[in-house]
């Protein structure tokens, strides 16, 4: 892709290109990386904006309402209006708050949600950093996300935010364990920590040879892990039915109570960016990333986007359908159901891989 862009620039600029290139060449890797970051971030933030719109529409339809339809045609400008409103509002600081940490909270929430995208492959070669330890990087970065909530909850120096922070730290650590253990089976069958390789490993197998590739993706042989991963993903992003961290009927809005304006919007952005990240990770690990489900259709980014959209719809669907979990039952589900289940399935997959019946070679 890099060579194509360079050729295109050279043909547009013509004779101007040679002196310009001499000037740009020493910093070109930096410029190219920045361009790639912008190419990932700009669509991501746009999808975050329209995910909020889509969520309100979908939940509206499920509850036999119309949803937002006032701003712009079919309400399409609603997220822009919301963003503008939040942008123009004042950020209030509570008198008893720890000012520095109060500012640090939203930053620590959004930074990991964006940084994790560095290793996500969107299509063959479409990845910012094709590193060998991609899965480890994702696990490490997503484990940092809880700091935003904890810092915000403590720095607000108020009761409900602190309850939110306590709940968040317990819940996110518990479900990280289940998520990580679920991923271990994926790593075992693909014998790689590189996300692009994990995707291309799912293109091999008997069903892929028969042209029905979607049956050789990881979701089928690792079905329990797929379920555990998806549900833990919902809990990890603090979405309904695991949204006790916000719990507006119990603790108002948890860690976000004291925040206003853009500081509040940062938490909002982080939550939705995390949702999109979990959907991207699930499609890479279990649903074959950019691979086409059937042999006669070409692979490509559109499949990745379709899979992510389907998982995001699942997120919205369960939010409209299920009541909130009780807190002790969340803990029970994480530690007493998911962790033993993943441990047993690791053993099962290990034995399966070593037996003559193995489907991974």
């Amino acid at each position: 892709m890099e060579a194509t862009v360079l050729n295109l620039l050279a043909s547009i600029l013509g004779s101007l290109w040679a002196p310009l290139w001499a000037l740009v060449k020493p910093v070109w890797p930096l410029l190219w990386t920045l361009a790639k970051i912008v190419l990932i971030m700009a669509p991501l933030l746009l999808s975050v904006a329209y995910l909020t719109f889509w969520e309100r529409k979908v939940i509206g339809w499920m509850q036999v309402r119309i949803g937002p339809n006032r701003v712009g045609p079919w309400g399409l400008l609603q997220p822009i209006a919301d963003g503008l409103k939040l942008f123009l509002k004042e950020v209030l600081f509570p008198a008893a708050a720890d000012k520095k940490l109060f500012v640090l909270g939203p930053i620590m929430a959004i930074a990991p949600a964006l940084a994790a995208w560095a290793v996500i492959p969107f299509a063959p070669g479409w990845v910012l950093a094709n590193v060998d330890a991609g899965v480890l990087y994702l696990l490490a970065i997503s484990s940092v996300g809880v700091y935003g909530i904890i810092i915000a909850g403590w720095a607000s120096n108020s009761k409900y935010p602190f309850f939110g922070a306590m709940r968040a730290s317990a819940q996110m650590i518990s479900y990280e364990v289940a998520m990580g253990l679920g991923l271990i089976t994926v790593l075992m069958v693909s014998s790689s920590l590189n996300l692009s390789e994990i995707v291309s490993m799912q293109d091999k197998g008997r069903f892929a040879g028969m042209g029905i590739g979607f049956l050789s993706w990881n979701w089928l042989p690792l079905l329990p892990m797929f379920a555990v991963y998806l549900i833990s993903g919902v809990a990890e992003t603090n979405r309904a039915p695991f949204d006790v961290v916000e719990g507006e009927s119990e603790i108002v809005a948890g860690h976000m109570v004291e925040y206003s304006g853009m500081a509040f919007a940062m938490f909002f952005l982080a939550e939705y960016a995390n949702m999109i990240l979990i959907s991207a990770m699930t499609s890479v690990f279990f649903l074959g990333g950019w691979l086409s489900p059937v042999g006669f259709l070409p692979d490509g980014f559109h499949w990745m986007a379709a899979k992510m959209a389907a998982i995001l719809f699942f997120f919205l669907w369960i939010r409209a359908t299920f009541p909130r979990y009780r807190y002790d039952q969340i803990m029970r589900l994480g530690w007493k159901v998911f962790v033993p289940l993943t441990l047993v399935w690791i053993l099962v997959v290990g034995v399966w891989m070593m037996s003559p019946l193995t489907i991974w070679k």
Partner: protein
Amino acid sequence: MEFKTILFYIFSAVTVLAALRVITARNPVHAALFLVLAFFNVAGLWMLLQAEFLALALIMVYVGAVMVLFLFVVMMLDINIERVRQGFWKNLPLGALVGGLMAVEMSMVLSGRYFGLANLPPQNLPANYSNTKELARLLYTDYAYPFEIASVILLVAIIAAVMLTLRTRKDNKAMHASDQIAVKSKDRMRLVKMAPEVEVSVPTAKEGEQA
């Protein structure tokens, strides 16, 4: 100066400053967060040494789990920093001794080339070198038994710690989620058979009073 060298100086300067603030910060929560910052920068340093597994595991384990629980506790405690500082001068000689010992040990490890240690990592690793694979190969082949024994000892320590600190009160009214889930409707509700309607003789209203 090479770019890597610049990165090294940035990471180590921030590490040293953050570590200093850990012991000088008046607020224990600030101190814990500075420790997190120090961990992050140490992970950056390890990344420069091409030890990506250790670097990411440091963030995952220490930053992502240990320090979160640490903060969890520190935030709920009302620590009086003056009382913590009381025995400072009395304990200083012992602290200085331990600190000095650690500094000597570290300098011996770091200047291993000078002391002629043979087991130093090669300076130029091949491009396809994977720190993760290399570590896994060593841990699960050459050092399989020590590794497994160490993990069993850790497991025993975890369970022992839980058992030693777990105190269940006799009048504990905690709910048991598994019992609650196992409940059937007939445990909680008794269906009583009775006639659907009971005839009651009501005096019929006169025609004029209706509606």
